């Protein structure tokens, strides 16, 4: 099987460079990088320029919201800038993409706080690497009544939620955690034991 590496010496430099840059991206190996590069080579000038410009713009124009650390084009992200939103609730998430996920539900009208990661000692990520101090800072200046912990339901996410719970306890505000349970439209018999177990533990009164 021919590998990409020796071939690279045959490639002219700009092509080799683009392949290398693309293959640094997550989820893209050398093969996909080569395929993308040759696709771009064949595509029209305007198309490639639009892509290049989009990448530059993303780095030039997008920053982190100074309040919640979501993606933003100015000081505040669109959600923080929207004064009609419920200022008394904060959903705490790991990544900006999680904000989108919660927004898609259309059942939440409050604010967010993006931690930019989760506690993962095996990868050397501890509380000081997350935006936890900034969250506590917000509690001093904002009229927060409830913090909803929406970190992922895995070990690292739970560890993060646990630490936040301890940090938030002295503030005397309501702290909640997303419920864990069964997906809508699913079948009980196909649910894995752990999910079904936590759905049972987290059951609630309906009448």
């Amino acid at each position, binding site marked *: *099987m021919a590998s990409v590496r020796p071939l690279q010496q045959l490639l002219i430099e700009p092509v080799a460079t683009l392949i290398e840059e693309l293959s640094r991206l997550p989820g893209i190996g050398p093969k996909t990088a080569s395929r993308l590069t040759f696709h771009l080579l064949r595509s029209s000038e305007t198309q490639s320029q639009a892509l290049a410009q989009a990448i530059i713009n993303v780095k030039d124009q997008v920053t982190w919201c100074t309040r919640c650390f979501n993606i933003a084009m100015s000081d505040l992200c669109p959600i923080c800038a929207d004064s009609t939103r419920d200022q008394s609730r904060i959903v705490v998430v790991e990544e900006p993409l999680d904000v989108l996920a919660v927004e898609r539900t259309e059942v939440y009208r409050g604010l967010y706080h993006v931690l930019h990661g989760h506690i993962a000692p095996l990868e050397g990520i*501890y509380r000081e690497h997350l935006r936890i101090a900034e969250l506590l800072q917000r509690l001093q200046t904002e009229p927060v009544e409830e913090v909803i912990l929406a970190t992922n339901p895995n070990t690292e996410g739970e560890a993060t939620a*646990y630490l936040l719970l301890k940090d938030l306890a002295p503030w005397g505000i309501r702290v909640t955690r997303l419920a864990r349970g069964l997906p809508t439209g699913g079948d009980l018999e196909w649910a894995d034991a752990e999910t079904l177990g936590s759905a049972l533990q987290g059951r609630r009164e309906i009448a």
Partner: protein
Amino acid sequence: MHILNLSLRHFRNYEQLEFTPGPGVSLIYGNNASGKTSLLEALFYLATTRSPRTTNDRELVNWHAREEAVAPPFARIAADVQQVSGYIKIEVLIQLRSQEQHENSGGGSQKLVRLNQRVVRALDLIGQLRVVLFTPDDLTLVDGAPSNRRRYLDMTLSQLDPHYVRTLSRYNKLVQTRNAMLRAWRERRRTLRSVDEELAYWDDEMITAGGYVLAERLQAVADVNTLIKPIFQANTGEAQELHIAYRPSFDFAGMTEAHHLVEQFRQTLQQRRSEELKRGQTLVGPQRDDLLFTVGNVDLGRYGSRGQQRSVALALKLAEVELMRMRSGDAPILLLDDVLSELDLQRRKYTLEAIRHPHQQTIVSSTDLGTFDGDFLSAVDRWRVEQGRVYRG
């Protein structure tokens, strides 16, 4: 349970093999390096998703598979298994990654596991096929490092209890995580200000998982103790009894319920916190436990003769077979890799008697048919192994 068919493709020195052992005893014989051990290795792999010989799955893929133009090279192990409760098909594909993929992902191979033709996680395969493997290396169970004895317990329990495999794998990751935190503090990479607060979550999780692992191990040792006594006595003629003691890393005063173990685990962890911070390592828990084999208060690991140690290893394996039969209601497949020739006449005779059980599929490998008497040879299925091929007869 028994295997109806084992099918290998590009596995070790087998390019292709269909092996159909009978439900009783099969004797596979041939010269060294002909492929006898690899055949047993394949069955062990299907049972545990691990090789007993290597931690690097790349080694399992036949060299010819790498020379072929088809990409990527792979090894395939599959079997049809008749359990008491039904019939299952299991299959593992071990696929080599190319050099670049290897560098990106950090793993040299990946496995794809199917149970009844559905893709499942590797953990879901463990326990579907149950085997007990006995090789000449198993002497280290008695005289080797404690990790050998822990692995024996873990392998046995993992095949019997799906919850055990998962809890153990979670426990091991929690210990690693905790070690990473303790190391960071020891090396002063992080401030010691909020140690208790930051460890609290990981301690809780580790203690809960560890308490379960410990309770299951203690129960298994208690059961094996009962089962092993008659076996050991019969195959050695020793008047004194063999006893297996579980050596824990903390004292639980003989109270073996999981909730009590969890509480003792927690207290010990608290007491040894400063020591753990100094050493940068988790110092308490089932990952540090050991087994002790004694006959009349003599520690056989240290003072036993070679013959006594071999008897303990053999009795341990035969007791494992009984434990699996007792707990699951279904006998495991017993794999004896070239061990009979090392036993003296009495122990060999006892072992051959023990395996001629009507519902006990056993695969025995040997280089030398002279080890066996005519009676035995005429009662078993014979298979000759030669350079990665198996012939009946």
